[in-house]
C-alpha cells in the first residue's frame, strides 16, 4: 500500500464456482448462518419510501456489489435496494440499507 496503490477488486474465493459444487447436493441458504444478517430486497414502493424517509438519492446509500454472495442468493439486481437487519448489542435490531451496484 505504500506506493499509493488502487484497491483491487475483492475476490470471493470461497464462493467461486459454488453453484457447481452445490449442484446435486442439497443446497443451503447463506442467510441461515447465524452471523449473516438478514438481507431483504425492497420493492419499488418500499425503496422509494426509504429514500423519501432519509431525503436522499439512491447514490447516497451505502453500496453492495451484485457479486456479493448474499445478493446472489436473494437475487438482487443492480439498482435494487436491500434492507439489512442486524442484531445489535445496544439497540436489539438495527436497520441498514444498501444500493446494489455492479
Amino acid at each position, binding site marked *: 500500500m505504500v*506506493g499509493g*496503490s488502487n484497491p483491487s477488486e475483492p475476490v470471493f474465493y470461497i464462493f467461486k464456482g459454488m453453484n457447481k459444487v452445490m449442484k446435486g447436493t442439497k443446497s443451503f441458504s447463506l442467510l441461515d448462518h447465524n452471523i449473516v444478517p438478514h438481507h431483504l430486497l425492497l420493492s419499488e414502493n418500499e425503496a422509494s419510501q426509504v429514500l423519501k424517509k432519509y431525503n436522499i438519492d439512491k447514490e447516497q446509500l*451505502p453500496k453492495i456489489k451484485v457479486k456479493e454472495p448474499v445478493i446472489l442468493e436473494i437475487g438482487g439486481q443492480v439498482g435494487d435496494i436491500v434492507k439489512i437487519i442486524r442484531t445489535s448489542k445496544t439497540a436489539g435490531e438495527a436497520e441498514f440499507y444498501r444500493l446494489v451496484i455492479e
Partner: protein
Amino acid sequence: MFKTVPKRIKEIRFGLISPKEYRKMSVTRVITADTYDDDGFPIEMGLMDPRMGVIDPGLRCKTCGGRAGECPGHFGHVELIAPVIHVGFAKLIRKILRATCRECSALLLDSNQKKKYLEQIRTMRKMGQPIEDITNEVFKEARKPKICMYCGAGQLDIKVEKPSTYVEKMGDHDHKLMPSDIRVRLEKISNEDIEVIGMDPNNARPEWVILTVLPVPPVTMRPSITLESGQRSEDDLTHKLVDIIRINQRFQENREAGAPQLIIEDLWELLQYHVTTFMDNAVSGVPPARHRSGRPLKTLSQRLKGKEGRFRGSLSGKRVNFSARTVISPDPNLSVSEVGVPLSIAMEMTIPVYVTKRNIEQVREYIRRGPDNHPGANYIERSDRRRIKVTDSNCEEMAETVELGWKIDRQLKNGDIVLFNRQPSLHRMSIMAHNVKVLPHKTFRLNPAVCPPYNADFDGDEMNMHVLQTEEARAEAMMLIHVQENILSPRFGGPIIGGIHDHISGMYLLTRGDSRLSKSEILDMLSKTKIEELSEPAGEVDGKPYWTGKQAVSHILPSGLNMAYKAGICEDCDTCKEENCELDAYVLVKDGQLLSGTIEEKAVGAFKGLIVDKIIKDYGSARGLQFINDATMLGIKGIMHYGFSFGISDEDIPNEASIQISELLGEAEDRVMNLILVYNEGNLEPLPGRTVDETLELKIMQELGKARDSTGNIAGKYLGLENAAVVMAVSGARGSMLNLTQMAGCVGQQAVRGERIKRGYEGRTLSNFHTGDLGAAAHGFVKNSYKSGLSPTEYFFHAIGGREGLVDTAVRTSQSGYLQRRLVNALQDLEVQYDGTVRDTRGMVVQFRYGEDGIDPMKSEFSKPQAIKWIIESVTSKEVE
C-alpha cells in the same frame, strides 16, 4: 510588472533539469563573487545582481520591475569550469556506472532481458505501482557480466570513496574517474537503456546528474540583513555561493595558466566540496562547511529537512497569535473551571473591545491604566483602522480622545474565558475553556482535579492557552467546551473529572465509620465550600454538640438526591446487609443526606464518580461542577484534619509477620521443588492441551503467585486499616494492595512475555545457578520485598522485568498514536445529522442511526442501558439488580 493568473495544476512531473534549461531559466550569468559596490548598490553579474530580484525597499527588480515583496525572484547561473557531481545522485551514479560498459556505455543485459524488464516497468507504471523492485533487479543483474556483450570490452570493479569519488580498479593500481569522465560515459547511454533502468530519457538524461551549470537561487531566498552597525550580513547560501564562484575563478585561471595536473585536481576537489556542501551540509564523510564562528552553515538541504525544515516546520507547521505556553503547577484553591494565568502573560494577551456608548467609560479606564498597570490596554485602533500603541506617556491623552466605533486591545483579566490545551490532543477534553484567574509567578495554575482529562501531571508538563477574540467564539466556548460541559466523557458516559489522590483519601477518612467533628471542626471542614448553613448536630457528648463526617458530606450534596450503591470497598458478601454492612460499604443517600456508606473513589473519583455522574444528570452540569469543587475542597480539609503521611517505616511489619512470610515462602519453594522432582521422575500429569514442560511452568507460576498473594495478606493484616498506604489502596486514592504486597511482603515472580525468565546462558539464566536448575530463584522469583531489599540476582531479574515494561509502553504509545491518526483522518468529517443519520460531507449515508441505537454515549449511564434502573433506584433508594 506582470500579474500572475491563477492556473489549475493538471500534472506534476519530476525529472532532472538539463544544463540547457538551467541557462534558459537564468536571468544572468554570475561571474563575480562580489555582492555590493562601495555605494551599497548591488553589482551587475554579481551574486546580488538586481535582475535576480530585489530585497532592498525602494529598488525595483531589473527583470520583472517588481518592488521588494512583489518580485518573486529569478534564478541566475554559474558556468562551472569543470563538471561536478550532484551529491543527491551519488548513489544513482554508482549504480549506473556499475551496470554499464566502460567503453560503449551499453547496459550490460542481453536484449531479451531488457525487453522483459521494460515490459514489467511499463505495466507497473500503468498500474501506478512503484518500480523500485524491478530497477533494483536490473542494476543487480547488469552488474554481473565481466565482459561487455556488445563491444567485448572487459569490465572493471568500481569502488566508491566517501560521497562522490569513483575509482576503477585497474589491476594493482586505482584509477580515479573524474566527473568529466563519468559524464562522457553517461552521455553515451542509449535512450532504450535509460528506460530499462527506470528513467525517462526526455525528462531525466543520466548525464544531467553531473553539473556543468549551477543555478544561483534568487536573491529573495537568501536575503542579506543589515546589522545595526550598518554592516551587511549575508545569508549562508550567499556565503556558499561566494566560495563556489571564487574557486571556479581560481580553477579557470590556473587551467589557463597551464598549472600542473596536481593543482588542477586539488581545485577540482575543492569545487566539488563547495558544490556538495551548498546542496547538503550534512553528507557523511564530508566535513560540514562552517561559519567563522564555528557554526555549521545552513544550506539547501538543511532548509528543507527535519522538524524545523520547510515541510514540517513552515508548511505543515501552524502557529497562532493570542496564545501562551508555560509550565503548569497545581493550585487546589482554584475552581476546577479556572486557570491561573501569570500576570506577565495576562499583560501581554489582549481581548478586543469595541467602544460603545455603554462601555466608553470602562474603556477609558482601561486606557488610563496604560500597558503596565494590570487590567489595562495595549493598543487602540481608530475608526480608520490605524493602530496606536498605548504607552505610559500617551495613555492619559488617549483615554480622552477615544471615540465610539474605535477598538481597544484590553489586557486579560479575571473571569475572561480562554482555551486551555495539553498535547497530544487526543480527545476533545484535551482542549477545554477555563475562566482566567490572574496570579503572580510564572506558571499556569490548575486544579489537580482537571488533570485526568488533560492527562497532565506537574513533573514539568507545559500547557497552552488561547485567548478568544470574538463574542461568538466566547459564547461557543462557554456553551460547548467549558470545563463543566466536559465533566462527562463522551467515551463512556461517566465523569472524567473528579477527585484524585488526596481528595479521595480525605473523603474516605472523613466518612468512614462514625467519625465525629466538633462545631469548630465541621465549620472548618466546610469553610472552603459554598455552604452557608450548618445542619442540626447529630448528638451531644458532655453537653457539646457533634456532627458526623457523613453529615459534612451531606452538606455538599444537593437536597433531594437519592442514591444507593455498593462502594468500592464492598467485599461482595453473599447477602448484602445494606445499611448495616460492617464495612460501611453500602452508600445510601436519601434526600441529600448521606445515611450510610463510605465515600471513596467510586463516589467522587475521576472515571468512576457515581455521585458526580448522578448529580450532573439530575441537576445539570453547573451543579455538578459545584459539587466537584466542594467535594475536592472538603476532601482536602478532611485529609488535613486527620493528618496524612507516608514513609518507609509505614512498611514496618512485626517480627512474627516476617517469620510467617518467610515460612510461607519456604513452603512454596518446597512445593516447587516437589513439582520439579515429580517432573524429573516423569510422573507429572500434563494439563489438557499442554506439554509436560508447559504444565510444570504453569504450576510453578501458580504456586509462586499464590505464595506472593498470601504474603500480601499477611502484611496487610499486620499493617491494619490505619496504615496510610492501606488507606490509599482501599479508598482508591493511589496505589493498590499489590503495591503494598511488593513493598512489605514479597516482590514475586519477574516475568518476560508472561513467562518465567529463561534467557541467559545455556541451560541457566545466570552463572550463579546450576545448569538445568528449574527452581524458583533461578528463574526470577524475588523472595524479598522492596522494603527488605533485593539480592543481587533478584535485582538483576527485576531489571529484566522492568525493562520489558518500559519497552512495551514505548512501543504501544507509538503504535496507538499512529492508529489514532489514521482513525481521526478517516472519521473527522462524519457528522450526525438532525435526522439521526451519520453522513459525510457529500451527504453519503454512513449509518442510518448513529451507533445503531442513536444514543449519545455522553448522556448514557456509563454506556449501559440503565436509565430505568436509575429511576427506580432514585425513587426507592434501594439498589436494584
